[in-house]
């Protein structure tokens, strides 16, 4: 199966199954600034995934922000600073806490689950979860369709490529990009999962073939949005940057207070909202 038909099949599966969103108000997280809901959505499988949704107080439409899930069992609840400025949706993909009914992801283990067959690879479903979340967010009447951003790791790139109505992409981490090279550099998890899996007897060529469907450099040419890549080594990411139509690169300083502020300002300016530093309270 080639790249395009692989992802077209995911889109077809999503189109065939309604999302059936269920929203529940969360009074403890609702303030004068924003109203907070939990969301449950049906993705491929069918599988019910979970999201945190917050909608600013006042008259919309508002800019929107989709936070794709990180690699790990838990994603933080969206920060109040973001809740006050954006319609913000953070997704828990299948297997993460709050979306683990029937399937609880293992850490380590998730990165290689089903990886010996691209069609059964768990990230095929996880990508579908992200696409379903994007569809849901863009369908909300409170959202300004001209100002919808996505933020996260490679899944943010993939989501923006498959749902080209996004206007901004903020990439703060890379998991799949050159993963088969990076895995050789240390015993750091999660990429050490690839080494563990290969030691158990799997074929490197097969694993690499599966990962290639998720390589952000293959998705990048379809990203229409302005994109910020926040990376340690711009040279390492050159082959990704080169194929993103509207990319900017921010070299992380590892002064993470300053880095966080830069990333906030970049998106705020594109979205037409005020920048906010998380260290400043009040």
């Amino acid at each position, binding site marked *: 199966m080639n790249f395009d038909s692989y992802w077209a099949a995911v889109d077809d599966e999503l189109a065939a199954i309604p999302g059936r969103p269920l929203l529940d108000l969360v009074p403890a997280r609702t303030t004068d600034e924003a109203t907070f809901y939990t969301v449950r959505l049906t993705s491929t499988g069918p599988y019910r995934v979970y999201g945190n949704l917050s909608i600013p107080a006042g008259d919309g439409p508002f800019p929107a922000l989709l936070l794709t899930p990180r690699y*790990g069992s838990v994603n933080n*609840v969206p920060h109040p600073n973001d809740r006050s400025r954006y319609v913000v949706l953070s997704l828990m993909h299948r297997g993460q806490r709050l979306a683990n009914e029937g399937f609880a992801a293992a850490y380590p283990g998730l990165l290689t689950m089903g990886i010996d067959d691209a069609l059964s690879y768990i990230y095929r479903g996880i990508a579908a979860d992200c696409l379903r979340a994007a569809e849901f967010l863009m369908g909300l009447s409170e959202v300004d369709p001209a100002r919808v951003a996505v933020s996260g790791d490679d899944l943010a790139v993939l989501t923006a490529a498959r749902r080209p109505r996004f206007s901004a992409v903020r990439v703060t981490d890379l998991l799949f990009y050159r993963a088969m090279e990076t895995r050789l550099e240390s*015993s750091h998890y999660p990429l050490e999962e690839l080494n*563990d899996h290969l030691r158990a007897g799997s074929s490197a060529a097969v694993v690499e073939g599966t990962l290639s469907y998720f390589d952000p450099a293959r998705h990048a040419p379809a990203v229409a949005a302005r994109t910020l890549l926040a990376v340690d080594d711009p040279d390492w990411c050159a082959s990704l940057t080169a194929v993103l139509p509207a990319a900017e690169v921010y070299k992380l*300083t590892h002064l*993470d*207070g300053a880095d966080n502020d830069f990333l906030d300002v970049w998106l705020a300016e594109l979205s037409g909202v005020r920048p906010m530093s998380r*260290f400043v309270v009040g």
Partner: protein
Amino acid sequence: MRDPENATVEVELPADFDEFWAAGLADCASYPLDAVLTEMPTLSTARVIVYDVRCTSYGGLRIAGWYAVPRDRPAPYPGLVTIPGYISEPTIPKEWAELGYAALAVAPRGKLRSNDVFNPGYPGLLTHNIVDHNTYGYRGFYLDVVRAVEVLLDRPEVDELRIGLQGSSQGGGLGISTAALMPDVIRCVAAGAPYLCGIMTAPTLTRSYPYEEINEYLRMHPKDVDRVRETVAYYDGLNFAPKVQAPTLLYLGLEDDVCPPETGFALHRVLRCEKRLHTYPHCAHHAGLPDVMRLVEDFLAEHLDPGTVDR
């Protein structure tokens, strides 16, 4: 303008603080440790042997961990317990084993593999039964780290006179509490961006999670504020700190929105042990990562002597 170094952060010490924790330790001691180690060949490497660990902790609950020991150098090894952050799962500590440590990454109750019985979730743990110090969710969680140290003490390949603790955020905070509860055992602590210090002050200084959970709780239960304050005083790192005897390394981000630096400075002030403090301007919760890890490795090596270190 904030002045974190000179900010006032105070916590009342409960009169029965020592008795409370002695009772918790006694409860743990009433159960056999029953540590079961299962070698995991597919997770092991040419340099490191990895084990799945299970043991019995507070309340008789079974908890898990990952244990990694060097394959390429002779025992005995110094022991190191690594403690996870609030939303993190413990990763297999192969890199510490590669440096010469018998390293145990503990999964306290509620973490994956230790959540069959107790599973308050995230968010959730910080406010689980927060109006009652006897049943507060963190009670067993704190004691699970003590139990992890006892697993190391039980291992013949570990030198019981060279056991240290390492963690950041929640791992840093629980490093302090564990060192206080085991003053005769713990030889050093490396604690980054320590969480669970100045627990009632921190939510007034930040809107970031997990402390925001307390703000949310009090938004719904404003009349409980005194009971919450009473409960968390038993768990506050500022009340454990004076009991720590092991040399302690602290590192703080001076723009940390998750664990406000005011609380880290307060911890440093009340530590009476040999202590070092590194502060990082313009840094948030990473508190100097990744560069600070070289300081952490050097500090642990200085006190635990893992031998020649391959970097």
